[in-house]
């Protein structure tokens, strides 16, 4: 198949696992003999040129909280308009790629920051079949509209949007559909996957006498860093001191070290900074458990899978995406998202109520077998193939939609600015 992949970012620049998974999927499809082109943006930092990656799209960066905080309301709304809804330039670049590459199917990833709704409308206009890989609630984000009352844009998108979807968890599907966008006519649940080779067998592990806990990812309230620090305090207050928590990731909020200091947890909780993913996964072998006290609307969570692949047992929030795929006590340990519940789970390991060895072995096996890109790519391939067979009858012209996109973009800008001035 000729597959045009569209993603807002593509490694090396990533926000999280979504973009890394995109590259892994692309490379897996290439390995299986497909002709794959990636249409993406230059990202936010220089990227090396890669033959199958066309960085012709423009990114209206929605990720900089600093810029958003300092921008005027009008600027923010205009950025939202181009970032989420329609960017006529990106429509033009997409048409150019479609014309040049003549794909059988378009494989969509994260469309934030590139005027995703406009791209979807463009594909609809040209009757180009697509499959949208959803690792987050991107459809609803694209409809974000800062106005009072019901979000009428969601209603309209729900009315018109029809396509094939891959979603990483039921949670993601439910959230999108709860927001009012039915994923019709087809959505298939395919879990995220862990990259890299498996680590060594750690079913018989030597005890260091201390429970070694690792956490990695964005250091934000949503990811549960506060919960983790609080759980350390609970353990220490229970008189349990044989543990250490190392937190990897870029530290943007210095409130957390302050919290550690305030609780006097310096001997137990450490911030280790950010590591490249390849180096980070090697570190998992040095730890007993991977703590993942993430929020309920976590779409999935790739890091716990990578930890499991290296024999590091995930202890995860009971309600989150990855929790749907792993069995408590078999492949992981689950806890309610409270400091006490996580402290309880840590304590069961420390006092050997739970034997980590068999869980680590089963987790490593199941991740090696089922949560690998090699394992899921045939299913992705099948849905791409089904989509590619869709009729393209009734396709509108490129010129027509391009003009339409320009006019719609200008109209939207005017209306947005008038709304801010009112």
């Amino acid at each position, binding site marked *: 198949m000729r597959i045009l992949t569209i993603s807002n970012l593509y490694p090396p620049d990533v926000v999280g696992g979504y973009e890394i998974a995109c590259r892994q999927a692309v490379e897996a499809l290439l390995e299986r003999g497909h002709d794959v082109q990636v249409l993406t943006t230059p990202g936010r930092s220089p990227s090396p040129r890669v033959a199958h990656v066309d960085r012709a799209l423009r990114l209206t960066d929605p990720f900089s909280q600093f810029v958003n905080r300092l921008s005027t309301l009008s600027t923010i709304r205009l950025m939202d308009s181009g970032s989420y809804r329609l960017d006529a330039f990106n429509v033009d670049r997409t048409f150019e790629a479609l014309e040049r590459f003549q794909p059988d199917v378009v494989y969509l990833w994260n469309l934030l920051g590139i005027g995703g709704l406009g791209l979807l409308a463009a594909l609809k206009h040209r*009757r180009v079949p697509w499959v949208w890989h959803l690792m987050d609630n991107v459809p609803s984000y694209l409809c974000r509209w800062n106005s009072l009352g019901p979000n009428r844009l969601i209603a309209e998108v729900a009315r018109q949007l029809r396509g094939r979807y891959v979603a990483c968890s039921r949670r993601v599907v439910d959230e999108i559909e709860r927001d009012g966008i039915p994923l019709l006519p087809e959505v298939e649940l395919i879990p995220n996957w862990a990259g890299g080779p498996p680590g060594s067998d750690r079913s018989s592990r030597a005890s260091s006498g201390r429970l070694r806990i690792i956490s990695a990812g964005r250091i934000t309230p949503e990811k549960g860093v506060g919960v983790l620090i609080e759980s350390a305090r609970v353990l220490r207050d229970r008189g349990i001191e044989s543990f250490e928590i190392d937190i990897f990731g870029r530290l943007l909020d210095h409130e957390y070290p302050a919290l550690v200091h305030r609780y006097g947890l310096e001997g137990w909780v450490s911030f280790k900074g950010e590591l490249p993913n390849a180096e980070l996964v090697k570190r998992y072998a040095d730890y007993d458990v991977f703590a993942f006290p993430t929020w309920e609307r976590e779409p999935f969570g790739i890091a716990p899978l990578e930890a499991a692949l290296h024999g590091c047992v995930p202890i995860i929030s009971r309600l989150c995406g990855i929790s749907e795929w792993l069995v408590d006590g078999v492949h992981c340990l689950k806890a309610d998202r409270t400091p006490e519940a996580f402290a309880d789970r840590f304590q069961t390991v420390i006092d050997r109520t739970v034997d980590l060895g068999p869980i680590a072995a089963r987790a490593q096996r199941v991740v090696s077998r089922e949560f690998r890109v090699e394992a899921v790519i045939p299913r992705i391939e099948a849905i791409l193939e089904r989509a590619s067979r869709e*009729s393209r*009858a*009734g396709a509108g012209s490129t010129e027509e939609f391009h*003009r*339409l996109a*320009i006019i719609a973009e200008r*109209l939207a800008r*005017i209306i947005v600015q008038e709304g801010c001035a009112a």
Partner: protein
Amino acid sequence: MRRIAYVTPLYFGDDSCVGGGERYPQNLAKGVALSAPEKYSVDLITFGTRPSQRELAPGVALRVIVAAGVPRTPFEAVSWELPATLDEYDLVHVHQSATRCGEVAVAVAKQLRKPTVITDHGAHTSTLGLEYGLAELADAVVAYSDFGAALHHVKSTPIHVVKGGVDSDVFTPTNGVRVRDRFTYVGRLLPHKGIDRLIDALPADLPLTVCGRVYHEDYFRLLRSKAEGKLVEFVTDADDEAILALYRRAWANVLSSVHTDCYGNSFVAPELMGFTLLEAMACGTPAICARTAAMPEFVDHGETGFVYDDLASLTNILQLLASDSSLVERLGRQAREAVEARFDLRAAGRSMAKLYDDLIDSESGSAREAA
């Protein structure tokens, strides 16, 4: 049954009206529905604070959808409901295409892949469409005069001229004995209508009734000042019946619109048709118009009325008609015949229905249905 949507920021009624540009879509809708009652229904889609729907005529309904926010003028009205609403129709005809309302409607209709027709009624509140070639998106442009057609600069979109659209069942000659005792002007009281020039040309002994709503207080003051010492009557609150009665008692109905008004303001298209000329003609009353914009296309000089070039000529024409009742009756009769043959809404409706048929049946329309 083929359903046609007429998107119009204004409609002809007590709640919403500017001029002939609003009566025209309504009449055209009636004409289309009358031309093929089993085949076509037309809904006028407009905007308001609450939704409503009511029948205006057989096969013609007025559908009000809720406007988003509070538009500064009706021409800027847009609605979140527009896409879902337009999706119900087989074809979208956007009236007042050079307005925000019209531009959004065209964009929505084309995004929905609907055959789309546009008509400019002279409300040019936005140039965005002009700058970015909005008309190229349309499948057809409908102008109601050759003059109007010439104003469109489109490369690929065909322009169809469909003249007229007056309801000759409503505007009819009187059944009884006709008494004619005045000239009339019917229309909005605005500077580009050149009413000041008409009053200037009016002989002191001939009566003129100026009938229309006041939209420009300074101009209205000017008109009253010029009317001093002349037999000019102003009627600013006439209803349809009163207007009909005025047409019937007139020696002629005069439209003296200008490209440059008394304040020096220029107008590219002061009249795209001159609807009140046709209404009067339908009533069997001769029409007099300046040789301005589209108006001469509708008045056959010496046959259905007169076309004048200067005020001296206008004065002569007024004196001639006031003194020659047989000429008035002959011109009036021929004016009525011209309307029935060429400018009646049924004739316009037939032309429009043919165009709609072609567009809906065209390749793009068929492909859209197949998809």
